[in-house]
């Protein structure tokens, strides 16, 4: 293995992590007893404010953050246990997911004391949702082509531009907005960008118009966000002016390495196991076993990245590898199960497997798009190999 892509041995489970695992299992068994497989199939796209608040009460959001910001100073591995148990149970964690995964850590690293003190405790309490304002109509994978512009005005900034595919912008309390603060440079595409912390409760309707974009399954997750003369106060800037690119790439290892990158189809696998039963034909056993083997190997890689993050390393390349392998698995799961279970997908069907299958058939294409397309990730990995 090339050094740039080496995976450190994952920290081994301890008594503490396994005790925590048992607690989380008992919690989800009680809290989610009535959650149907169809609902569980939404994985971390499922949103439930009340559930997030209960997780916050348990101390399961912002777990690794300092106590002074509402965190619980637990290990990355303990946090990992909570994440994977929630995902395996199909828990509706979407309301706080982005804030816990990447916006909170970004604030911790780059935010001012005031920003941290004001927002992190609310995230940790499960009372604060974030969205990410990155993509634009002419800037998808090519983030550096973003044109949304913040210009200095008296007492702050005036922002103009359009963001798209912004998941949860209609409900989020905050957006971390990536935009230009200087005109484009011909020599350095990554210069002159900054991140802003936008209070969505104030911005919506006051310079910001959030319009739904309905996905092909008929659901409203993402949005178009039109920004016209939106005023942001001086203290809305996140981190240093001009450091936007560095800060946004610093989020990537957090965004890409977690169990949310290979467990999006887990409910489908579990329901296929239920439907096929212990006497499933041999070819089904082989096929389901293969998917399970992949999960077991990926889980080890993903936990390794969690350990590397805890050790202060920057495993962005390893994270890209985990996400790429994980997304392939999530999508293959759909194809494998439709063949061995021989069911037709039917969204909202009364029967569980056709309905869960339809959910995944209609959402799986997004798995290798969201959070960095397969092609972009593979390009990053190639760069890590020294090819670019």
């Amino acid at each position: 293995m090339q050094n740039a892509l080496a995976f450190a041995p994952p920290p081994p489970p301890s008594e503490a992590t396994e005790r925590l695992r048992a607690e989380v299992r008992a919690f989800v068994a009680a809290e989610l007893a009535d959650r149907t497989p169809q609902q569980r199939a939404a994985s971390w796209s499922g949103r439930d404010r009340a559930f997030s608040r209960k997780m916050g009460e348990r101390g399961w959001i912002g777990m690794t953050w300092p106590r002074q910001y509402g965190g619980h100073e637990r290990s990355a591995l303990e946090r990992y246990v909570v994440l994977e148990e929630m995902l395996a149970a199909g828990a509706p964690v979407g309301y706080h997911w982005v804030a816990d995964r990447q916006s909170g850590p970004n604030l911790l690293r780059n935010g001012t004391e005031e920003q941290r003190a004001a927002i992190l405790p609310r995230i940790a309490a499960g009372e604060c949702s974030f969205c990410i304002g990155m993509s634009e109509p002419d800037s998808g994978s090519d983030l550096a082509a973003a044109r949304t512009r913040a210009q200095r005005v008296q007492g702050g900034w005036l922002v103009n531009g359009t963001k798209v595919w912004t998941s949860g912008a209609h409900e989020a309390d905050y957006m971390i907005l990536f935009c230009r603060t200087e005109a484009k440079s011909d020599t350095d595409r990554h210069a002159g960008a900054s991140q802003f912390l936008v209070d969505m409760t104030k911005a919506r309707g006051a310079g910001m118009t959030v319009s739904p974009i309905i996905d092909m399954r008929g659901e409203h997750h993402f949005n178009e966000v039109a920004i016209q003369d939106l005023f942001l106060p001086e203290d809305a800037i996140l981190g240093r002016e001009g450091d936007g690119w560095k800060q946004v790439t610093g989020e990537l290892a957090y965004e890409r390495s977690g169990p949310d990158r290979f467990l999006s189809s887990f409910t489908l696998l579990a329901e296929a196991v239920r439907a096929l039963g212990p006497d499933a034909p041999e070819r089904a056993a082989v096929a389901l076993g293969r998917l399970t083997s992949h999960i077991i190997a990926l889980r080890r890689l993903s936990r390794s990245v969690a350990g590397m993050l805890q050790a202060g390393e920057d495993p962005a390349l390893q994270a890209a590898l985990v996400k790429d392998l994980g997304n392939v698995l999530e999508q293959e799961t759909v194809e494998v199960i439709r063949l061995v279970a021989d069911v037709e997908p039917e969204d909202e069907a009364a029967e569980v497997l056709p309905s869960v299958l339809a959910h995944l058939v209609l959402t799986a294409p997004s798995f290798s798009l969201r959070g960095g397309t397969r092609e972009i990730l593979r390009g990053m990995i190639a760069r890590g190999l020294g090819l670019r």
Partner: protein
Amino acid sequence: MSDQLADSAERLFASQVSKTVLQAADGGHWPAALWAAVEDTGYTAALLPEESGGFGASAAEAFGLVRVAAAHAAPIPLAETMLAGWLLARAGLPVPAGILTVAPVRRGPLALSGTGQGDAWHLAGTAARVPWGRQAAAIAVVAEGPEGPMVACVPAGSFAVAEGRSVANEPRDALTFDGPVTAGRSPISPEQLRAAGASLRTAQMAGALSRILAVCVAYVQTRVQFGRPIGKFQAIQQNMAVLAGQAAAAGAAADLAADAFAAGLDPFVVGAAKARAGEAASIVAGLAHQVHGAIGFTQEYELHHLTRRLWAWRDEFGNEAEWNALVGRGALAAGADGLWAKITDTMVTDAMITGAMITDAA
């Protein structure tokens, strides 16, 4: 693996496994000098307890040595000798010096009969495709005895050999036994030997895959077409990224296999590891040849020493279909509501490894 052990193994194999050695072995010559150098280091005893001649290496360290050897395509039975010694030691039998190997690798009828009282045990049957059977000083054979599994130590000269070879031109011989043998009760059943062998093959595949990645990276950076190194083309870069991902997955599988070996060879974990690494081997071998073009297909170039071994190892001690079926049966038996717990239980703790070691000693 401790860095020191890994570094010295890397130095040894890098200096000893030359192109000449590989080509001679490919032509059927036993690499005596290489084997002697490896035996001198004591690596062949890495899985033995200290009282049987081991040097106190952990299973992870022993597996690390196997990975390094495989990364150099070392054409010697290091994994087999380690494994045979481990089997014999576990059965309380002395571990002979020299080349050792194990049987069965493929399932087949091998039976031990007799009482072991006064007279020796009698071993009968044929073991197909035994690695380096013709060279071995002794074979550690796991067979069902009248009262459970046993290990027999069968010295060279006491069995018939029908020579065969792997696709990498390593010896894979059919051995026919029909005679008296020394045997001891074994805590390791034939199925557990299959898992132990699979776990070592997993480590070997991971080693070879890491080396193939390095060979491919070097090649695409130097081979120029259309005026630039081919690694500058996105099509090649995408293939290389897939290759790196598969190599990483196989590395994780090998780590899982090493932990499982130390913790009592849970077939669910070993099976997942062997199947995952085997799949990675198939994908990587294909991509490695694709990015190399015709040169990678030649006898002269080093790639085939690695890829041909992968094509042998992925089938031995159970292929992907066999192990995935076992994993799948485990998943189906756990049921929809027990599946996740079955998966999380595959992570071995240090305490489990220590526990297994204590059981070993008892």
